[in-house]
């Protein structure tokens, strides 16, 4: 972590009794794409607002490029581009006029702003609608114009809040490519907050998983997976069947057989028909032997944990369920379980 550009120390934000952000310590390096992953209401937006100096932290500090985000908010705002969640534009101005206005706000002359706007509209593929009133834009167009708007000030750092929310898959693909390009080609630092796992995985160099205002895990995606394995959590998804046997019977037989393997902790049937296995050690070898020995044919086998999927499932969906759950007792125990998991993850890796 040689060149830290965004740094927070013990950042806390409380709204009454609710702690939206709880002692957040974050270090983001220059030029990387950092994904802030968490369910709705985890405190992601609050964190981004505090980084921009739009909300004052209850305690703690945040610095961007060496400037205190609260005390020198103006300097920070000069360097940081912010794409808010559900970005809006002045509906009675054209897309181009909106961009030129932002450019002028950032000290460009009208001519410079116009030139830059034309270039950026081209870059985000919005030239065709540039002279239409922004009020007529679709969600995806607004989002793309939003990126152009952020780039009008030529920021070193870009903070994006849920940039792909509510965008169709094709638009999403374009948008992620564009965001990735901003980092790779222009060398900008990007902090992107989202609850959409796959998008974060596709874009980010590092991710931080954020639940209930706390960051419970942070690192490269691969590292996070390994972190889980290191503490004895191996995950596999398999699809196997026995020739000449009915589906249901074959599945229940398979489960019985697998229960015989020591170290397997969780066996779960998934909606797509595959079987989810969690184990304390790497059981691939014995698993294969058992399957072949019982005459099963292995159709599919995926090792989980190398991607965010399991991390997500383990930490983040649980929190989401307990947030939305009506049964308070159940959500309480789930939260407790989550806390243990978190402690395990954090302390095990520290040891």
């Amino acid at each position, binding site marked *: 972590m040689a060149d830290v550009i965004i740094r927070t120390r013990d950042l806390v934000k409380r709204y009454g009794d609710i702690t939206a952000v709880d002692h957040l310590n974050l270090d983001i390096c220059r030029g990387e794409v950092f994904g802030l992953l968490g369910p709705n209401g985890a405190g992601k937006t609050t964190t981004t607002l505090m980084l921009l100096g*739009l*909300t004052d932290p209850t305690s703690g500090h945040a610095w961007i490029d060496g400037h205190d985000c609260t005390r020198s908010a103006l300097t920070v705002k000069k360097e940081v581009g912010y794409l808010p969640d559900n970005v809006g534009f002045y509906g009675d101005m054209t897309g181009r006029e909106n961009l030129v206005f932002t450019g*002028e*706000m950032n000290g460009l002359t009208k001519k410079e702003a116009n030139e830059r706007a034309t270039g950026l509209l081209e870059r985000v593929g919005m030239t065709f609608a540039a002279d239409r009133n922004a009020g007529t834009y679709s969600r995806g167009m607004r989002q793309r114009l939003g990126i152009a708007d952020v780039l009008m000030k030529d920021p070193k750092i870009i903070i994006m809040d849920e940039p792909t929310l509510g965008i169709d898959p094709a638009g999403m693909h374009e948008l992620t490519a564009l965001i990735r390009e901003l980092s790779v080609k222009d060398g900008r630092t990007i902090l992107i907050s989202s609850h959409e796992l796959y998008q974060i995985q596709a874009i980010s160099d590092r991710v931080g998983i954020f639940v209930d205002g706390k960051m419970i895990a942070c690192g490269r995606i691969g590292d996070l997976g390994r972190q889980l394995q290191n503490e004895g959590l191996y995950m596999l998804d398999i699809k196997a069947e026995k020739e000449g046997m009915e589906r249901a019977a074959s599945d229940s037989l398979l489960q019985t057989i697998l229960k015989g393997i020591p170290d397997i902790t969780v066996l779960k049937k998934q909606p797509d028909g595959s079987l989810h296995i969690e184990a304390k050690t790497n059981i691939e070898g014995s698993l294969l032997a058992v399957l072949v020995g019982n005459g099963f044919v292995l159709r599919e086998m995926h090792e989980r944990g190398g991607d965010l999927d399991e991390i997500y499932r383990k930490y983040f969906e649980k929190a989401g369920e307990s947030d939305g759950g009506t049964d308070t007792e159940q959500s309480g125990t789930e939260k407790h379980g989550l806390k243990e998991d978190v402690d395990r993850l954090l302390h095990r890796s520290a040891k």
Partner: protein
Amino acid sequence: MWTDFCTDLQSDDSRTNRHGFKVLYLKEFADILSSKRFWVMFFLFLLIGIVSVRGAISTIGQASQQAQQQGASLTDYLFLTLFTTSGSSIYSFSTFVGFLGPIFGIMLGFDAINNEAAQGTLNRLAAQPIYRDTIINAKFLAGATAVFAAVFAVGLWVTGLGLLISGIEPQPEEFVRIVVFLLVSVIYICVWLAISILFSTISRHAATSALACIALWLFLTMFLSLFATGLAGLLFPVNSQSATISTALGYYNLQVGISRISPYYLFSEVTQVLMNPNVHSLDIMSTLASQDSQVASYLPIGQSLLQIWPQIVAMFAEMVAGFAIAYICFMKKEIRA
């Protein structure tokens, strides 16, 4: 302290902020000038101005004919009466300004902040390199500029029209009085601009803030005087047997005191004195005392201003207070989508 302030003004940050302010101010002003509702109100005012002056001229014409037959003259300040005389079926121009001016102010400000929030542009704007208060300052100032421009445009238009139609020549002092009247009208309308910006800050929907503004306007314009009369009558029963002169005085003071909360009442008092040099005082005691002994004379403009200075200051204070509360609410507001 002063030098600190000056160096601060020279710093990079405040220069950036000033530039942002200028850009935002110009954009807001342009927005107002290109909005339909501004022009609707502007032409409504212009129309009302023209019609009310026509009405005034016909009334004055009849009155002067009568006066001539009796061998007396009307007043030395005839031109001013164009603004304050009502026609047979229409109010005077100054009454119209007092009545409809607030609507003009409300219309310019009722969705200043909440519309920005509803469009999702507020957080984008706040993320630009400006201090947060620049947003509300620029909006208020742009609104005030528009009010100033509209009031003077209409006022001078009406003056010119009155001059053309009636052929009455305004004296320089009358012209000064008209300019002061227009300036006071600007302050009066800006009171309502400030109040409407305040409501636009605290209520989420533009419709709510518009209705709240209109409700407050109706209350202060129509019902406050009723309320004042009722309350004063309760505390100082002037119609009872035991009523003394001090009861009557207490009644009067309380009633006027409460009524003066309303900018409408303040504005009409200002108009009374400013546009009619014959009115010497607003205070009931001096009016009563001079009733018998009063020599028909005119107050010079300085003296007229002296009489209404408290009212002007009170109106200005109401404007500042309204804006200050709006400012504080805006600074404490949570900026998020």
